[in-house]
């Protein structure tokens, strides 16, 4: 059996994000990049299956050369090899474009199972994995926190509000991992060392039959701004009519959450 895990290189969640001088992008200098935390759960699930039976685990990513560093983290956890769709244009692509690249790499790999994190913690798009499944025309279930492999099918548990949703899905299929699925391992040192020597195959856009135009999106970022700094709560004083008046005023003038419709 062959399992693929889709991973993404993201800034560490504790990083202080700075907007670049063009006001449209994030300053990446000095940022510490890691394997997206939900992807760790995806890798862990694949590696656990590999430990139980004859499985090959391939890590798949799309982006620039720097993605290899992140992929090595997944290889250190126990994945066997990697495939990177490498092109600088991918860095600017949206979820749709990345999904096209990944699906292009995956379509001829003959994988039975694909795992991914439920979302990447940088832009939190929550769509690439699902798009890949659609492009490959296979079943998928997102946000799973339970997984049992059967004969040609799997039983998964999806987390839904106020309960859980148990499903049986035939293979091949794609699943995105939620936190409760497992506890990602801390790599053993010999595996960290071995990971440095494991193969990461590079594919160009041409190799997967995708043109730059295919992954260019019509979406354009016009500007970025920081969330407003959090300030303490305010307690309004005075009698009720006065407080209501003040509250409405604040919501209108300071917070700008209600507008006066022009006549």
């Amino acid at each position, binding site marked *: 059996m062959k399992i693929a895990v889709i991973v993404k290189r993201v800034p560490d969640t504790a990083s202080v994000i700075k907007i670049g001088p063009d006001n449209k992008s994030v300053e990446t200098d000095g940022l*510490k990049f890691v394997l997206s935390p939900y992807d760790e759960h995806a890798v862990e699930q694949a590696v656990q299956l590999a430990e139980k039976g004859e499985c090959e685990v391939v890590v798949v990513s799309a982006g620039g050369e720097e993605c290899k560093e992140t992929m090595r983290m997944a290889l250190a956890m126990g994945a066997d090899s990697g495939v990177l769709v490498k092109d600088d244009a991918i860095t600017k692509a949206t979820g749709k474009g990345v999904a096209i690249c990944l699906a292009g790499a995956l379509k001829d790999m003959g994988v039975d199972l694909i795992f991914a994190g439920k979302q990447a913690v940088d832009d939190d798009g929550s769509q690439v994995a699902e798009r890949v499944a659609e492009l490959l025309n296979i079943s998928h279930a997102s946000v799973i926190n339970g997984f049992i492999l059967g004969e040609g099918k799997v039983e998964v548990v999806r987390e839904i509000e106020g309960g859980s949703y148990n499903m049986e899905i035939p293979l091949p299929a794609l699943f995105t991992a939620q936190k409760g699925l497992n*506890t990602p391992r*801390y790599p*053993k*040192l010999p595996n*960290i060392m071995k990971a440095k020597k494991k193969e990461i195959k590079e594919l160009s856009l041409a190799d997967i039959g995708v043109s730059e135009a295919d992954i260019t999106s019509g979406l354009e970022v016009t500007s970025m701004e920081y969330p407003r700094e959090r300030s303490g709560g305010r307690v309004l004083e005075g009698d009720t009519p006065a407080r209501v008046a003040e509250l409405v005023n604040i919501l209108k003038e300071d917070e700008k959450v209600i507008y006066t419709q022009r006549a």
Partner: protein
Amino acid sequence: MNTGNTITREIYWNVAVESFPVTQIVMYGLVFIAMGLFVHGLVKGGFLTRFKMWRLGIATDDDRLSDKAGRAVKALVEILTHKKILERPVMGAIHFCLFWGFLTLVAATTLVFIQADVTSPLLGVTFLKGNFYLFFSMAADIGGGLALLAVMAALVRRYFLRPAWLDNRIQDTTILWLLLLILASGFCVEALRMQATELQAGNPMGPYVWFSPVGRLFAFLFAGSSVKAAETFHRFIWWTHLAFSLSFIVYIAYSKLLHMFMTPVNIFLRSDSQQAPLKIMSPEIFENAETFGVHNIEEYTWKDLFDTEACMRCGRCVEVCPAYNTDKPLRPRDVIQNMRNHLEEKSKFVMGEDGKAKIVPDEEYKGPALIGECVDKDTAWACTTCMACVEACPAYIHQFPKLIDLRRYLVMMESDFPEEMNEAFKGMENNSNPWSLGAETRGDWAKPLNVPLMAEKQDAEYLYYVGCAGSFDDRNQKVSTAVASLLQKAGVDFAILGAEEGCCGDSARRAGNEYLAQMLIQQNIETFGRYKVKKIIASCPHGYNILKNEYAQLGGEYEVYHHTEILAKLLDEGKLKPNKELQGKITLHESCYLTRYNSILEPPRKIINAVPGAQLSELDRNRKNSFCCGAGGGRMWMEEKLGTAINVNRTQEAVDTGADTIASCCPYCLTMLTDGTKSLNKDEDVKVKDVAEILNEACE
């Protein structure tokens, strides 16, 4: 004074047979047999076999044989003065009396042997007479008398006071009773001889009976018995005394008594540093070695294995261990003893024909495992690396570093560690701090004070290395602020690294993640090198210790001071003048990494005493006996799931002094004791503060 030949005693009196030395023949026959059994014990019972076992140790050790003369002198001084043993006054005094008492008795017996069987028969020379005889008799009696009291005290301690940490085996009983019987029978022999001769009217020795004071006292037991009866009884007890003494000699080879040889050797072999160093792993090891840390006993050094032999189970390490004192499964003595037994088992599998350990693959070895069976994982993780065991050990055994070797294996080879550590390791890896907070914000605490960064002030005399806690933990940021304010008030030329500072690597190293520790250390060494850092002030004793004592292993050598040292110096120089009076009583909790690791004892006291109105009330366990807060060795990041809480144990002790302020000198201690006051519902009445904060409040 009567000199000449009347002041003496007859050797072999009453036991020698006229004209034929049958007594000597029988006696030396017995001595010969005893010696034979002693040697048999050493060979068969283990010494030679064990010698081979120690040599199984694979890991390379420090040079332990350089400067043999210096080592021998130091060991001899240590043994003769009992300096370490006397650190526990009662048991120390008992051992001191036994040691010196028996040494005197052995010397006396040797003199008797020399005169009776060498100089007298061969040369006709006797020397046990006159004033020398009186001195000889007095010395032997006092030595033996003290030894007798000591044995009785030891018996009372072992069987009536029964300290919980003392383990009792049959050989402990055998040894104490044998000692008691040797001494008592010896004094009975002397007393019966006196009763039959010196105490009889008209005996020329009559005036000198009190030169054998203990014998004279014992003689009261036999007062009134006839000369004949005393003589008969004397003969019987003389042979009994001989039998006990020879049994004892034989038993040395078969029991913990062997420590009288092994412990001095271990003292001779001890390392110079007061530290108990963890094994150095050179960075190349990570590229080439197949296994890291220790999971087979033969992976230790020969000295580690020898340590197991030098232990005579006194239990001092257990008595002081914070894990043991809070009902965790760690007893350092038992770790060492279990390793000793395990070595015996394991050596059967791994002893190669050349005497070296052969590699037995894990799958092929069917005996008990070192980790899990000989030493439980919980035991290995219970250690706070406070070094109380090493400090207490009179045999200079390094107990806890052996546990860190096990952690190294568990972490690096098995990825098997308390799960809370996962977050801490990842934090250190990604953000260079175990809290996993953004590395860029490390220097933010200092912004209100306008502390210069090294990048802005490259020629600053001191680098103030703040450490993770002082940089990221809200409470400890206040301590860093106090230290920086004091340095500013005193006009010290210093700067910080801000976001360029990295985690010191102490928690990673002591939690067994040596690979991560070395990455962190190398990162810092590189940064320090870029600014040509020479002098460092550190706030966290853990950072202080590793920067000062362990960075050199990877090429980083600096002059490192803890902030208490610098502040005490600034007070001495009059650059800080505390003028504001402080109300209330202060007690001082000291960090293990200052006291036992680095002998910093007076600076925090000097600082507190410099504050007007401060009344320092010492904790019972202070200075080198200070009790751990529970956070060392990476335990800061692990949950304390077994036993009771170490921090509460220590906080209770501090609260009991009646102090309203607990002074600390370590960010981990500050956190642990603050939590302790909360657990005890005392956080309203008792405040925990760093000494720097106390001083800063007093310096307006």
